[in-house]
């Protein structure tokens, strides 16, 4: 079943001054349960693509369907609520709210959804255990390593059981050991929870763990390999 469908997706920055064609007609289908990497050199359009799929940016042409919903039809609170209920986000860094503990950060989106206390508690405890942080639940982000912070961010993204998770270079600021750890953990959760992961990277060891690798070059799909 296809989770994400992009059709002839394009994005041009500064169309009126010096146009930058960041994406030039990307057509892709991401199926449910995939563990897929978007790779490509810096500036190839990875972030732009993930932002469009996540409804954080608006395409210049083409469209994005998420679970059958045309993202361009949504705006304002409807779009925000759609992200809250269907998409998990992990960013490159500074994902977490500094004044909340690891537990509170992981719980955050569920709280926004208004899930009951008991459900939140069980889910967040289980996830923090799964990412190996049950001993650090009460720590604030500043008391956690970069790798630990990213794991909390993954737990926060997974907690509300979204349709899929978008992770834009989640390992970019991690040492290689932490990066491999994070990826192993994501791969395991992808298996256990069946959550679709779509992440960008240009780290070879991260790429090695993906089951499908889509390569972007100059805003176009140059290669799409399944393993």
């Amino acid at each position, binding site marked *: 079943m296809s989770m994400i469908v992009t059709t002839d997706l394009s994005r041009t920055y500064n169309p009126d001054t010096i146009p930058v064609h960041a994406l030039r007609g990307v057509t892709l289908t991401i199926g449910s349960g995939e563990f897929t990497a978007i790779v490509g050199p810096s500036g190839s359009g990875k972030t732009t693509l993930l932002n469009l799929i996540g409804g954080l*940016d608006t395409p210049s042409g083409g469209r994005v369907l998420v679970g059958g919903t045309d993202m361009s039809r949504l705006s304002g609170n409807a779009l925000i609520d759609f992200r*809250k*209920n269907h998409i998990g*986000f992990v960013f490159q860094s*500074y994902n977490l*709210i500094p004044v909340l503990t690891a537990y509170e950060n992981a719980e955050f989106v569920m*709280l926004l959804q208004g899930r009951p206390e008991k459900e939140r508690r069980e889910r967040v405890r289980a996830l923090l255990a799964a990412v190996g942080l049950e001993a650090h639940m009460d720590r604030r982000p500043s008391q956690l390593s970069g790798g630990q912070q990213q794991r909390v961010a993954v737990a*926060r993204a997974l907690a509300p059981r979204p349709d899929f998770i978008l992770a834009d270079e989640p390992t970019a600021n991690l040492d290689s050991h932490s990066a491999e750890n994070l990826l192993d953990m994501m791969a395991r959760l992808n298996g256990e929870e069946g959550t679709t992961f779509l992440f960008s990277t240009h780290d070879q060891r991260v790429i090695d763990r993906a089951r499908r690798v889509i390569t972007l070059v100059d805003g176009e799909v140059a290669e799409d390999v399944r393993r």
Partner: protein
Amino acid sequence: MNRSLVLAWRNIWRNKRRTLISAASVAFAVLFSVSVSSLQKGGWDRMLDNVVRFYFGYAQVHAAGYSEEQTIDRSMAMDADRMREWEGALGGRQVVPRLESFALASTGPATVGVLLSGIDPEREDAFTGLAARVVKGAYLQPDEQGLLVSAGIATDLGVGVGDTVILLSQGYQSATADGKYAVTGIVSFGSPDLNKLMVFLPLAEAQYFFGAEGRATSFVLDLEGQDEVPGALAAMRGLLDPEVHEVLGWEELIPDLVQARAFDEAGSVIVLIILYLIIAFGLFGTVLMMTKEREYEFGVLIAIGMRRGQLTGILWAEVLFLSLMGALAGMAMALPVVAWFQVNPIVFTGEMADVYEKFGVEPVMPTVVDARIFLVQGATIFLLAAAMAVYPWLRIRSLSPVTAMRH
């Protein structure tokens, strides 16, 4: 969602020093405003209270037109039955009759202008406590001869108890009024103005002096407080023909003072507005920084599903916490200050004292602890904080998560 409030509370402590400085500036403004307002209200309340309770009363009845032209010719006939009728209408409050006009008091070598007031000794004493102000000699007795002279006039004339004073004035319907009276008592007022003005005769004696038998110029309604004024005015106006009588409340009896108070208060409102504007600019600087430095975080929050309204609410709560903390601290500091000066009033000297004496009031300025003053300050800070939140609201409304997170 009370997690928002927790978040807001923790957020303001991310920059402890900035928060404390901002709250302190609000606290200072509130301390200053509460103190100034309390002092001002206390002073004016006391002044008006003095004037009203020790002389004018909360309401008076005159012949129509007396307040326009205060002469003995605009006096009215009085009789005991009517006064009893009025007292009935007032629910038992006393009516205090007076026959007043200006006169010259002379000993031969020295002459001064005085306000000669013919009074019912018992009723007047019940109303103003005049008997207790006698410092030498004795108070007036209703059916005996006697003359009470205020201390300042006694000094100016160089007279004491037992000395003779000649009074001269224009009587009722242009008759000449003159008489010789032995001083039977000296009274001293807190108000320096009254001390240089008042001379009292028993009412019957004054009626005889002015040739105005059975008449009085004013009837003071001896009410307990301001609250009773509207009811008393209504009762008396229901009873009396406005063509014949005028019924005036204290605000109409001393319009100059009421106006002076309004003017004085408007002046300090302007000062306080300027103070709050300065505080508002400081607070706005804080709000600006609180918003600007966290745009990346706002981007993350909106991306993961927080509505802009919720986010604005958190910022609003932060500004509110910060300023209300300051306001509460300011009030907590103001309370002992204000309470102290209520018990130990400021005593003025020099020029300020002269100003007070002009209005005939003791140059003493107590403060007043009035919950309304504190409430008004709290409300002002609340509104200020609410207005501050317009900036984060505008900023968050147009914030694009993508732009915000591209550091």
